[in-house]
């Protein structure tokens, strides 16, 4: 199938600051992509450009639409959570459902109500009477009841407890995700989403520094743990980074055959968080 999102040469400047710097990428259907980067890396700006919420230079096509010009049409097939604490505080839950039901042709009200019935949120509650977690549940229940091709979640679980976060990602994977849909998630808690991602993109300083499928990461990157005796030999393979754990050296390699490293010590695929640190500290150096 053809790409859902195509971005070519996308840049966004705020005055002299370059938030997104000549970024190009494509996103296929049926993927779960983690967009990972430090604060101020340009993640949110890039997502905003994809969602038609900001002007930009370059070309973006989302489901064949120009997001900035056709935002309303785009929102039929793309749904997003920019921040989970943005629901208006004065509205009642049933009013909110009436509103979305009337304005969104792909919203399935009964699905939202079923999902809400599993929470403590009732239809007559006002948003301001709900706890932070309940507001997030409400928002996510609405968003997940929208039959969208692309779902974009920008820090969807920020400030929520671990039980909620686990339950949310499980529901996302089991009830929402399918071959037709693509989900893009940004989060600081990389470890929590690592096991549900199919693809990962690292962004730093407005540039994409890594864009891989999870399978290819295992082929391309290797983490090696060696004792002090083998450390010098290991360094000969030009690691991206090296750190010390319990008197042993942990080195991350890119494009070095696993078989060669296996002779030196313990070999495994690096976790995303470690890979992220490795890729970015290399950038700094």
């Amino acid at each position: 199938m053809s790409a859902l999102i195509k971005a070519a040469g996308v840049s966004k400047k705020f005055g002299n600051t370059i938030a997104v710097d000549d970024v190009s990428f494509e996103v296929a259907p049926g993927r779960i992509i983690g967009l990972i980067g430090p604060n101020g890396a340009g993640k949110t700006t890039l997502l905003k450009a994809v969602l038609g919420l900001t002007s930009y230079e370059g070309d973006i096509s989302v489901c064949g639409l120009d997001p900035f010009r056709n935002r309303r049409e785009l929102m039929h097939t793309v749904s997003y959570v920019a921040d989970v604490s943005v629901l208006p505080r004065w509205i009642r839950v049933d009013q909110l459902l009436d509103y979305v039901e009337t304005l969104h042709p792909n919203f399935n009200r009964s699905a939202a109500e079923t999902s809400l019935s599993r929470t403590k949120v009732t239809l007559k509650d006002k948003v301001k009477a709900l706890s932070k977690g309940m507001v997030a549940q409400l928002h996510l229940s609405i968003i997940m009841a929208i039959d969208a091709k692309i779902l974009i979640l920008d820090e969807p679980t920020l400030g929520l407890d671990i039980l909620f976060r686990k339950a949310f990602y499980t529901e996302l994977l089991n009830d929402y995700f399918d071959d037709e849909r693509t989900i893009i998630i940004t989060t600081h808690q990389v470890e929590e989403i690592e096991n549900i991602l199919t693809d990962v993109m690292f962004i730093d300083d407005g540039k994409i520094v890594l864009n891989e499928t999870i399978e290819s990461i295992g082929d391309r990157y290797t983490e090696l743990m060696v004792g002090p005796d083998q450390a010098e030999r290991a360094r000969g393979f030009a690691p991206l980074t090296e750190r010390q754990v319990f008197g042993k050296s942990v080195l991350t390699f890119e494009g070095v055959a696993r078989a060669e490293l296996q002779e030196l010590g313990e070999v495994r695929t690096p976790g995303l968080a470690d890979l992220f640190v490795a890729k970015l500290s290399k950038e700094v150096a």
Partner: protein
Amino acid sequence: MLARMKILVQRELWEHKALYVAPAVMAGLVVFGFVVSFVWSLIQGVPFEAAVAAMEIGGQQINLAGSAALIGVSSGTLNLVLAIVVFFYAIDALYAERKDKSILFWRSLPVTDTETVLSKLLTAVIAAPLITVAIALVTQVVLMVLFTLALLVGGGNPIDLLWKQVPFGELALLAVYSFMTASLWFAPFIGYFLFCSSFAKRSALIWVFLPVTVVVMLEGIVGQSWNVLRVIGERFPSHSLAAYSAPSGLEFKEEDFEQFVMGADISLLDVMAPVQFLTSAGLWVGFVITGVFLAGAVYFRRLRA
């Protein structure tokens, strides 16, 4: 399309309850005032019979004067309340959603910025006055019932003395007409308030008054003239000139009012001049200005999200 606009306006009313609560409370106060004075008169032993006798003699004049007072008290008071709540609504309408960040949610739904801004204008210019005039009409009915009670206490016949005398249908139509024409006439002001609320970083209140004050003062100091102030000022009395006619001609003169009160055979409907109003240049110039401000508001909403 209609269903979409309906829910968008509904949304505004959910958020800004003052648009109907404030006129309802004011109407309640007016009714309450009449009830208190009625009860007080009963306690004090005011001779209702004498008043009724005077009405029977005075006939139509007194009754028509009474009905004029009825419009004055309910419509006039509520018009003032409406102007105040609509003003505060309009300067808040596009600002509050940025302040509480809910704009991020609203814009995640398939609703264009134009639709949203338009729904806010319709709320201020159509929905709010319609609600207020409905409240005014209910208030008038309640007041009529109170007068009926007073007449019954005085031993008069309320059908002859009140209900046959007061042209209630005409009064109601005139009330709707006056509320709606005034509202359309002042649409450019609402457009300007919405525009201010679309870009204001803090309260839009200062943006509403500051530029106008500066422009007026600059013109006064540099040009030694007051054209801006005059144009704004002229908008106010000229509404009645465009929307109403008087039996003696286009100018509404004092003797017309006297004739009216003195019970000359004039239908209240003759006062209304809808064709003259809808074809007046002032109205259409106002619409164009409103359109320009709305376009500005759409532009800022799109960029300032």
